[in-house]
């Protein structure tokens, strides 16, 4: 989806509720003035996720990858196919010394993020770091603090923040369309061993780093970090309490991280987000269900459902048009509506159609835009920080088998949190 289509599809013009729900969309506010500018970027660790991001960057005329760093030759070769002029580095610190590089994209294994990002900020670079941010909340906090100290752009790869389905969902949630929020059920079920092909045994930990505690926090940092955020985005509140359990129940293949995890995050008013990930059954797939007393949203599926009698989509669209100062036709008049023709609750599409994008391309485009304009979109660093911090708090709860509360020393001045002053 093109940026213009994206903004149009959301009815961004004049949408005050939308601006309040997803303020980081301001990243595209100057898109008309940046058409002739180019962001010179370096990518550090262009493995599978990095290649995915590069596939979008290649289509963005405002982005140029002028440097890349990796120690794994296949990743270097693949990147050079897309950007043959890019300078190749084996050590990221050398890449950071390249004065031409304005911003970096960090897609290395989790355990390396913190030091690379801190060094990048110190080198005066803008930073896009893949989620999760780091191995500990403390490291995430250090990264965020460094962003604040240097004033450089800081994005975390939380693509749902730019996914039209989620943006529209939150607009509706915050407008009260689904009533009071009563709970969340987030889950990610797969049925595979989560392993990648290893051409040579000595590369096992290098390639399958997600499976080892030295490099990864497993399902909590690789999958849950996408999803826990939905609760705080909807509630506009950080849950302060978490309990959980993890185990290896199926893939007993020398891996160290759990293949079966559950966490309960508790908001201050008692509303809970139940998180579950199991990778030996895929029947229920992936979703974040938002449960209001008037209705339910399944943003991943792109649908919402009302508890009893649904409002009419055409009239909901009219309300949305009125908010956005639009005068459009209402396509609803026709032969009589009767309950027998509408008694199965199939739900309605959140954005009027089946989803076609997950927000990744728009997220990376927004980063390019921010590098060019040098303007940090509102709340995006904070959202990125808390997305990682919460999944790491869940991980800690699993490891300690205790009910944990969010540590005061790592709170930011954000939503219901107040930064602790000494």
């Amino acid at each position: 989806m093109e940026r213009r289509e994206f903004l149009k599809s959301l009815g961004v013009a004049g949408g005050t509720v939308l601006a309040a729900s997803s303020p980081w969309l301001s990243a595209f506010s100057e898109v008309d003035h940046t058409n002739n500018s180019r962001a010179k970027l370096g990518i550090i660790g262009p493995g599978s996720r990095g290649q995915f991001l590069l596939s979008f960057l290649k289509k963005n005329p405002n982005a140029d990858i002028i440097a890349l760093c990796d120690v794994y030759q296949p990743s270097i070769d693949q990147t050079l196919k897309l950007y043959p002029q890019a300078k190749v580095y084996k050590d990221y610190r050398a890449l950071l010394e390249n004065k031409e590089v304005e911003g970096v994209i960090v897609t290395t294994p989790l355990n390396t993020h913190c030091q690379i990002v801190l060094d990048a900020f110190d080198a005066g670079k803008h930073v896009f770091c893949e989620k999760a941010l780091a191995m500990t909340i403390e490291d995430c906090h250090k990264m965020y603090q460094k962003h604040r100290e240097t004033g450089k752009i800081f994005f975390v790869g939380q693509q749902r923040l730019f996914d039209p389905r989620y943006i529209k969902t939150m607009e509706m949630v915050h407008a009260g369309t689904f009533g009071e929020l009563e709970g969340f059920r987030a889950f990610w079920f797969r049925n595979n061993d989560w392993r990648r092909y290893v051409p040579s045994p000595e590369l096992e930990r290098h390639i399958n780093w997600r499976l080892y505690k030295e490099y990864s926090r497993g399902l909590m940092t690789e999958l849950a970090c996408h999803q826990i955020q939905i609760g705080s985005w909807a509630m506009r509140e950080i849950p302060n309490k978490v309990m959980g359990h993890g185990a290896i129940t199926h893939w007993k293949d020398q891996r160290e991280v759990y293949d079966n995890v559950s966490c309960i995050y508790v908001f201050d008013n008692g509303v809970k987000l139940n998180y579950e990930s199991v990778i030996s059954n895929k029947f229920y797939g992936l979703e974040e269900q938002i449960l209001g007393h008037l209705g339910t949203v399944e943003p991943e599926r792109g649908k919402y459902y009302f508890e009893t009698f649904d409002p009419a989509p055409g009239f909901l669209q009219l309300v949305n048009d009125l908010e956005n100062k639009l005068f459009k036709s209402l396509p609803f008049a026709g032969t009589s509506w009767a309950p027998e023709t509408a008694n199965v609750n199939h739900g309605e599409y959140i954005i009027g159609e089946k989803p076609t994008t997950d927000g990744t391309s728009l997220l990376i485009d927004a980063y390019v835009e921010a590098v060019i304009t040098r303007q940090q979109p509102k709340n995006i660093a904070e959202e990125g920080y808390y997305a990682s911090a919460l999944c790491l708090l869940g991980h800690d709860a699993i490891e300690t088998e205790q009910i944990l509360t969010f540590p005061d020393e790592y709170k930011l001045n954000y939503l219901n949190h107040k930064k602790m002053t000494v």
Partner: protein
Amino acid sequence: MSSYIFRQTDPESTVFYAWFEAMHTRIDMVWCNLMEEESVCLGNKIQEEIKRLEKMANRFDPASELAVINRLASSQPIGISEELGQILQECIGYNQKTFGVFDITIQSNNNDRNRTDHIVFDPDNQTIFFQNADIQLDLSGYIKGYALDKVKELLTAYGCCDALVSIGNSSVFAMGNHPMGSGWKVSTQYTGGALSAENKEVTLYNEFLTTSGNETEERKHIIDPATGHYVTGARAVSVITETGAIGEVLSKTLFIAPKIIPLLRPFRQVFL
């Protein structure tokens, strides 16, 4: 009124949308620039009014006034409320004006084309009597439009100037203007494949848009008095009128007998 959405669109403007189920269909209503409390109050009044009319005129509800009349009026004169008496007499008048096409006795158990002649009103005693034992009255093809006329009265009484109200999508009233333009733009949406080419957009201003037809080939529900059979074919007719009641009469009439358009000049309306 439990199902509604209220939004302050800017410091000076509001929008209220409420929906509920009644008359075996859905009712959707939107209006602008009334505060939330007022809007809820108005919404409740409209809901009460529509449910009241449903209670009076639903022939499937054994306790409704109409069902009692259907059950007993052939054996003895039955007391009738002033309002229902007036509705029935108006409908009988429309039966004559439409040359028998619009017919509230269509569900009767006989094929006598002069059934309405056997309905006797006694204004002094306020009763109704069926001289023919098989007469059954059915207001389902009329009451939605009548209800919309009542809704218009309530909106006016509450000082509402700009509103859009739909009863089952087939009976629509547009009052005043959409805040961003003149009138309200509404387009017909026939889901039957054969009808898709007929979809049209209209701008309504203090007018009623009424549609009658078959949504699909299979879902037919309007009987042609001339044949006693359901009208077939996935097609529909929409009319724009000054009252909801006349909209019901004309849309049904034209759906059943499209060829009589030239004979309907006494009615002021627009045919889509």
